[in-house]
């Protein structure tokens, strides 16, 4: 059995891997020996156990809402291919996309960018409880502007941010410099890439330890 210190336990993600049965016999024994002596890892292991046992109880409860049924993954692109046939579909689609892009840029996007505009922002607060805030996007809106209030006792120089869709997809992962203390982080997300639904904006430190998450609803 090899020794395991705290650094090695963290680097190895030993706590998660222990519960998932991913550690070798020697690693499991070493991690057990470690968490009996390391209060930080002991707390981590206890949290996992509390999560596992209580999640089992909650997920087994009939009143807990079930996961949404899987959607048809073929979507409009598959239908397009079926209509045109595979050989014709690609050039036809490319031509349509090019024409639409050129038209949109010259007729809509560039003139619009030259005009001043007023935007409403969605403020996301860390202690928000109850109903999720809703952003109502209007026709012609290009961005979803988020003002994210971060309340962390130990500020870090940079954050890792990402948007998580209800489907589980991770969108727009990015690293952002921390704003000055007391100032919210402002993020512009391209609305064109977002459909209506529930999202969660997640802020981690650079070691991927979650600092805060902010659920909200996008209405389009």
């Amino acid at each position, binding site marked *: 059995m090899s020794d395991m210190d705290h650094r090695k336990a963290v680097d190895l993600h030993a706590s998660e891997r222990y519960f*998932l049965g991913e550690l070798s016999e020697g690693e499991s024994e070493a991690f057990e020996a470690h968490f009996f002596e390391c209060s930080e890892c002991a707390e981590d292991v*206890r949290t996992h156990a509390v999560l596992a*046992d209580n999640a089992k109880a909650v997920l087994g409860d009939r009143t807990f809402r079930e*996961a949404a049924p899987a959607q048809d993954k073929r979507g409009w692109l598959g239908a397009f291919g079926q209509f045109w046939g595979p050989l014709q579909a690609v050039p036809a689609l490319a031509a349509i996309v090019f024409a639409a892009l050129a038209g949109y840029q010259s007729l809509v996007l560039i003139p619009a960018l030259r005009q001043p505009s007023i935007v409403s922002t969605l403020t996301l607060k860390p202690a928000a409880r109850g109903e999720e805030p809703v952003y109502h996007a209007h026709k012609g809106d290009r961005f979803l502007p988020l003002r994210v209030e971060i309340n962390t006792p130990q500020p870090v120089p940079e954050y890792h941010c990402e948007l998580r869709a209800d489907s589980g997809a991770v969108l727009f992962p990015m690293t952002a410099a921390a704003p000055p203390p007391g100032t919210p982080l402002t993020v512009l997300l391209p609305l064109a890439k977002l459909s209506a639904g529930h999202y969660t904006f997640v802020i981690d430190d650079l070691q991927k330890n979650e600092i805060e998450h902010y659920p909200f609803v996008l209405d389009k």
Partner: protein
Amino acid sequence: MERQSFDREYVRKLTEGDPEISRHFSEYFSELLQVKLRFRLRSPQLAEDARQETMLRVFSTLRKGSLEQPERLGAFVNSVCNNVIFETLRSHTRAAQMPENQPDPPDTRFDAESNLVTEQRKSHVRKVLESLPARDRQVLRMVFLEEKNREEVCSTMKIEGEYLRVLLHRAKSRLKTEMTKARLHL
């Protein structure tokens, strides 16, 4: 539960039967032993018997005053537990050899009836689960409720093992945050 470092004073009070220290010791190590023993022995009943036997032996040794390094109390509890596991497995192997084609016993690492489940904790875990995307909830359902192994979960949900680890880490962090906000100890 408060984080703890152990010293001579703690062990002295424990040996003398100080009620507060005894309660802390029992709560702190019972849960860690429960995790380890369920992982090692699988059967909740065997795990519970082994936990009680471990605590009994630890108290008995401490009362004899034979712990030379009080700061290594955790290591001592772990080594006593290892001995109890070894003896438990040996006695059960002797008592009843399993037939070769015997199906695997159910994985009982996560037990909804365990003493780790309380209404308050359930409410926080429910909140954490509801904050996750539906697909992540489905993954956790397979892990915790349906007790599928890692390979099966990854293959069914078309995810990498790394994603599963990150998801567990994220859910655990959210639970810690929820408990901290509610000023509750685990």
